[in-house]
């Protein structure tokens, strides 16, 4: 009887039912994919830079180059490009700071610079004082924020972000030392969560594109 009734709907109605069922199924699959991988629509090159799960940055207490407190709260409300280095670094840090400045200028051109801040955190707080950082970071870009503080607080931030930094003393006993350190730029989202790391080479155009793609994903 039941079969006869379905048959009684006629061919167009039965087809219509099938289409509806297919759509429901497709929507289900799409939704579960969305939940499983929020970055599904991003390019593979960008996906490779993202952490599997965004991780909130736990409280830390540092100070910026204007001697204002720089805590995890400053990572909320805008995106943050975070780089770790020191003012005695001849090769990698000036290069990264110039690249970050270029990224900022590209974002400014696109009217997006208000949505991101650029922060340079010292791994050599003993020598990189607030005054020194003021003269250092602003040379590369007035908008870059220099951050320093106690070694313990810097360690607490670097540990959270999986940043490595090792002091290396000159063999000759000259008193000179440098740091081997992570050269990736970390990206923090406006909810104060680390979402990925950009390893060098830092190609400003590419970083700006990646930022814009992530930002658009968040804005959707």
């Amino acid at each position, binding site marked *: 009887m039941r079969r006869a009734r379905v048959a009684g709907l006629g061919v167009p109605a039965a087809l219509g039912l099938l289409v509806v069922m297919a759509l429901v199924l497709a929507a289900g699959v799409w939704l579960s994919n969305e939940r499983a991988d929020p970055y599904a629509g991003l390019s593979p090159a960008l996906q490779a830079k993202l952490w599997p799960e965004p991780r909130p940055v736990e409280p830390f207490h540092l100070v910026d180059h204007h001697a204002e407190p720089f805590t995890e709260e400053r990572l909320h409300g805008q995106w943050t490009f975070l780089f770790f280095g020191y*003012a005695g670094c*001849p090769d990698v840090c*000036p290069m990264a700071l*110039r690249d970050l400045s270029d990224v900022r200028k590209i974002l400014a051109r696109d009217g997006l610079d208000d949505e991101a801040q650029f922060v340079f955190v010292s791994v050599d707080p003993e020598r990189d004082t607030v005054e020194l950082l003021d003269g250092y970071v602003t040379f590369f870009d007035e908008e870059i924020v220099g951050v320093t503080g106690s070694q313990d607080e810097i360690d607490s931030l670097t540990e959270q972000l999986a940043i490595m930094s090792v002091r290396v003393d000159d063999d000759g006993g*000259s008193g*000179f030392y440098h740091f081997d350190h*992570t*050269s990736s730029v970390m990206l923090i989202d406006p909810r104060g969560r680390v979402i990925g790391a950009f390893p060098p080479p830092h190609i400003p155009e590419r970083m700006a594109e990646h930022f814009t793609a992530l930002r658009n994903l968040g804005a959707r």
Partner: protein
Amino acid sequence: MLEKESEMLRTVRGVGVRGVIAVAALLVTVVATAGDELRIHDAWMPEVPPVARAVAGYMTLENHGDEPWVLIGAGSHRFDKVMVHSTVEESGVARMVHEDEVVIPPGETVAFDPGGLHLMLIGPHKPLDRGESVDIILVFQGGAEVPVRFRVGKKRVGEGEHTP
């Protein structure tokens, strides 16, 4: 300028085992020997803040001779110390490795570029100004001491920046 060049020549001849001739060409410093020719060009330092404790020196060395040239050190009156380093990226960490010697084999070119080989110029005695020229002495195996003039600029010479 000319006086300074000839002074440099004398310095080099005084200590140079191979008899080095220094020629300052337009925007680039070229250093060459009569027999074993080594050309050093595009010598530059990126502009850094006056408070920077170190700056990098970049250059390109071309060996046009038949013998290898081996760079074993460097020095300058403008800095506390000069070391030959290279940046090595390992699992996202930039390590600075001290190079005891850098060999420039015959017929080959070795480039000191950002993110790789560089002179680490530690403790500038006074800030470096954009467009300024700074002499660095390169020391090679065999005793040759070659003064090379580095330009302070935003980019390597020839990459679109005009030095004032």
